[in-house]
């Protein structure tokens, strides 16, 4: 469904401006230029799809002032990898997946893609994906963060993300009592 829409929008713009280019050039907040497959950009990002359809793509580099070069490089890398990836049959037949859930487990290459990111790069990518309306990349990055929390105690989670506990002992005790149904561990 989305694929068709993206292609259709890409097709229309072809008439408008940049005749036969199949890539678009994006410019990071610090002025670096990146080339990305136009088809993949339109398919994976609602914001880029809108810009391509609306003809507001600049041949000399479309300004993305909110996104730094490292995050934009990862966005572009993700789009280009996605453009080349073959949909995995395993995804469709996976027996443990929750059939009606909109989220499909990350594919192997997507896992590797987020696993190699530094802590800061991961969060920069979450924000970039959110800004660009990249639903799948947002799912994959947020899923990665959830995996960093899964099965950990509150203290361990605070340590991983450097979260400051600003509750008093009394406040904590009060919450534990209010939410006793979620906390009992006897």
């Amino acid at each position, binding site marked *: 469904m989305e694929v068709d829409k993206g292609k259709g929008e890409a097709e229309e713009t072809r008439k408008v401006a940049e005749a036969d280019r199949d890539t678009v050039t994006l410019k990071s907040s610090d002025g670096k230029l990146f080339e990305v497959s136009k088809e993949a950009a339109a398919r994976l990002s609602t914001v880029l799809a809108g810009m391509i359809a609306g003809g507001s793509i600049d041949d000399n580099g479309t300004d993305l002032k909110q996104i730094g070069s490292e995050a934009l490089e990862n966005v572009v890398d993700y789009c280009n990898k996605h453009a080349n990836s073959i949909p995995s049959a395993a995804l469709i037949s996976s027996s443990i997946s929750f059939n009606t859930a909109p*989220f499909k487990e990350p594919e192997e290459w997507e896992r590797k893609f987020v696993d190699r990111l530094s802590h*800061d790069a991961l969060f920069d990518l979450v*924000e970039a994906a959110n800004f660009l309306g990249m639903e799948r990349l947002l799912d994959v990055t*947020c899923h990665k963060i959830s995996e960093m929390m899964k099965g950990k105690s509150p203290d361990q989670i605070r340590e991983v993300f450097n*979260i400051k506990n600003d*509750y008093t002992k009394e406040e904590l005790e009060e919450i534990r009592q209010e*939410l006793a*149904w979620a906390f009992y561990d006897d």
Partner: protein
Amino acid sequence: MEAAAAKRARASRGSAPDRLSALSNELLCHVFSFLRSRQAVQTTILSKRWLDLWHSVPAIDLDITDFSESGRRYDVNWEKMKNFTTNLPMEHSAQLLDAIRLRLGIFDICDHLAPDVDVWV
């Protein structure tokens, strides 16, 4: 060498900004939607930033193993999960749920459990 660098990197997170808490509520709820509900509720005690955020997570994910302890009888675990599950919707305020997932283990179809499950769904 690599281990030392990793250790330094970990140690330096002591003063690193808390990127997770800095996310918008919407993005935090997105992260939460991949957690099992019990852990999502428990995040409340991380810090004040997290107080009550779980109320708006657009998914419910319950797993009997989150309520199980080795050596404990299944029906005791079941009571724990039932208690959690009865309380959760009363506190939950998301307008729409994208997903509800129940994982009940090998006793899925025990007749005496079915009425409880019916009530939740």
